[in-house]
């Protein structure tokens, strides 16, 4: 386990901030406060944050907020954002309708 993922590490209490109501993920309407709280709930990786809150899982697939979310999580863990692993990248890369995804060569 790398140091970043060490859940036994004490990251302190959640203390609310004046801009916790600010929306960070526009597509899924996730606020800064929700992301900060999620870290204190034990979500130390971006993948976990995505599954827990759906931040970065909407229409733009995190194109806009990925770096913002990363900076907030890193700030809460008191580490450099570069140390947080990027999320998995898997097909389909862009949002797509199920009927199109299922339509492979007319089959």
């Amino acid at each position, binding site marked *: 386990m790398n140091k970043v993922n060490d859940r036994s590490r004490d990251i302190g209490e959640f203390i609310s901030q004046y*801009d916790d109501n*600010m*929306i*960070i993920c*526009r597509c899924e309407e996730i606020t*800064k406060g929700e992301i900060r709280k999620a870290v204190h709930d034990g979500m130390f990786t971006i993948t976990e944050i995505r599954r827990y809150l759906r931040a970065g899982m909407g229409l733009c697939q995190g*194109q*806009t*907020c*990925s*770096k*913002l979310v990363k900076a907030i999580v890193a700030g809460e863990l008191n580490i450099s954002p*570069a140390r947080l692993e*990027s999320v998995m*990248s*898997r*097909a*389909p*890369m*862009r949002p*797509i309708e199920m*009927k*199109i*995804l299922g*339509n*492979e*060569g*007319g089959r």
Partner: protein
Amino acid sequence: MKRYDVIVVGSGPAGLSAAIEAAEKGLKVVVFDENSKPGGQLFKQIHKFFGSKEHRAKMRGFKIGEELLREAEKASVEVVLNAIVVGLFLDKEITVNINEEIVHYKGDAIIIATGASENMVAFDGWTLPGVIGAGAAQTMMNLHSVKPGNKVLMLGSGNVGVVVSYQLLQSGCQVAAIVDAASKIGGYGVHAAKVARCGVPFYLSHTIIKAEGDEYVTGVTIGEVDSRFQVIPGTEKYFDVDTICVAVGLSPMSQLLKMAGCDMEENPKKGGFVPLCDEYGETSISGIFAAGDVSGIEEASSAMIEGRISGAAAAYKLGFIDKEELEIKIEKLEKALSSLRQGMFGPGNKGKDIFRTEEGYDISINLLKKGYLTDEEVMKYPGVKFIKGIHPVIECSQNIPCNPCQDVCPQKCIKIGEKITSLPVVDEDSTCIGCGLCVASCSGQSIFLVNEDYEEEYTSVTLPYEFLPLPEKGTRGIALDRSGHRICETEVVEVKSPSAFDHTNLLTIKVPKEMGMKARFFKQQGVGI
């Protein structure tokens, strides 16, 4: 499943260049792009590019795009638009969403040239309508002829921020201010000077505190930041704007490469998450290449060369050219690429504070903080000389890779030399004929023709002018200095716009003698600019 020798993803400068290079060697090449028009960001670039002849310097971006499309067609490159590549898999197979269908393709080589996406910054009110990316502003103005707003505040003083600010002015918007949290202007000094002389103020070490408005942007409050980027209370400033434009950098769109399993790294110097590539742009997976911004944020000119390199490398890999031909090709391209990467804005100098030019001239602190050279500072540079009669005054004070002024002068008045980042030197012994080619060819619009002997009491100043309506001979207006301040009344005595100037009109204004080295912009009465 359809097969090609080379599949290119993205039809921007890197992708098209890669496709052309490979197709010219006889490979069967297809390019997929998710947009309805090819060219990536090139068709939004209405300004003239830097570099030298081999980099297509002094050509406007969209014209380079048109040229690339012609070359691609000639080389029989197949360009498929509205085609979204949704997956890149083992064995170089891709899935593409075309016309409500998922189509599988396989390539012997795959070149990923997906470019980059814009970064955002969160501040109070950043989700309000009216907060837009600089790229969106360019799309609206330069592709769809729509003004993004009336009064705009630009966040970000890098090249994108200053170039788009200038384009906003050209489209008839007012630019209230350019704001950056950094303590110095990030873009080329010449780009900053173009907007400063139009009267746009720079606020360095400032950030946006709040976008005002309930339904949409009605104003913005900014504040000064300390060395830890915290707002200093009491430094708040309010601007009445309807649009906030954000130009705070780009991130590589490298998801397809990660999906395929290429070795990746988080590299802040390259703008984010990028593939590890060899000198040909080949990733850790044999036959998968990355070219352009997706492999590290730079600019369009270097993206085109990277594309060429990957295209040639793919041709070699598939046996269409031999090792010798590849090496000759690559050596030439590497040389062109390395000359673009020289100078104080080169990737190797990213984040460094540079106080002197390569020649030992002081870098103007005023230029870095306010966007213009002072009257005293400008006199120090080798492009500024007092010569009898008409002569060029070159206010170029930073080492950037650019030399069209040297190439176009028929009298050989301007010398840069072999190293294209050197400051241009005006040769006092040569005779300027006042043709104006240097003024029109300067992508940074930093060359002026000055004639102190124009009339007994008047000096003439010839300046580049890219605004509408175009003044006529006899049009009266106000001369502005480098900081955009009004200095005197003036009159246009000549307007030149031959096709060789490519829409950079040359206005000659006459000003009182003492204003000859101050007047650098012409403001028409009753016109916003």
